[in-house]
């Protein structure tokens, strides 16, 4: 095999590898554009020392609420060592916006079986939008070590069918105990 043939073989291989990378990039770009997928990013600051006295994260405002346009906003407080509220009800098939913050240390939140996965930092509001296609209970552990009670810090997202989503006059619905 002479050098010209070796060079030709290498160039052919470069084309194959470029094609492989091109396929992956094309799939990501096309599906991201068509399905509006992108990494959650939200830079929004909040005073972590006043969460319990003022603003949207006061205790009475936590949990899921239906917005006038039919979408859902779920506000969750991640604190040592629990998520408040412990269980959040949302309807399947609707756009859900999770807004989460922390009054103490860095926590993490992921929803099992979905792509929702975010850090929760004191002083910032993490925001993730998603849609749950199927009803069911989703386990939500804290995935950032936050202290000795970290292992017991978890909550649940209860995705109910559309016909079981029955919010009260304020647009809120809570989990029935026990959960």
């Amino acid at each position: 095999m002479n050098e010209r043939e070796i060079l030709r073989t290498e160039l052919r291989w470069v084309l194959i590898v470029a094609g492989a990378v091109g396929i992956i990039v094309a799939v990501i770009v096309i599906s991201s554009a068509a399905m509006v997928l992108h990494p959650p990013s939200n830079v929004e600051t909040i005073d972590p020392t006043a969460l319990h006295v003022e603003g949207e994260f006061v205790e009475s405002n936590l949990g899921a609420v239906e917005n006038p346009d039919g979408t859902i906003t779920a506000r969750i407080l991640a604190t040592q060592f629990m998520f408040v509220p412990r269980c959040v009800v949302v309807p399947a098939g609707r756009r859900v916006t999770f807004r989460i913050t922390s009054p103490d240390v860095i926590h993490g939140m992921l929803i099992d079986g979905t792509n929702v996965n975010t850090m929760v930092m004191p002083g910032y509001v993490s925001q993730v939008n998603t849609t749950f296609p199927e009803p069911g209970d989703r386990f939500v552990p804290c995935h950032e070590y936050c202290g000795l009670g970290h292992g017991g810090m978890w909550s649940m997202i209860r995705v109910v069918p559309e016909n079981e989503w029955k919010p009260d006059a304020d647009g809120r619905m809570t989990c029935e105990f026990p959960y």
Partner: protein
Amino acid sequence: METYPEPSAAARPQDVADDVREEDLLRVLQDVPRGAFALCAIAVALLIILWLAIYFGVFLPRGPVS
């Protein structure tokens, strides 16, 4: 200052190159790149297929995030 001679690469039997005839070497080199090409192609094809399977079979069914 006393100097020592550098040891030769051929000082030990295991360091001496095998005695290969030039025409044998060329014959082997004719075949090797084809096999390597096939092996690489199979490896890359598997990589792409598995990536697509995980993307469409696991990532997308888990719902969109933004």
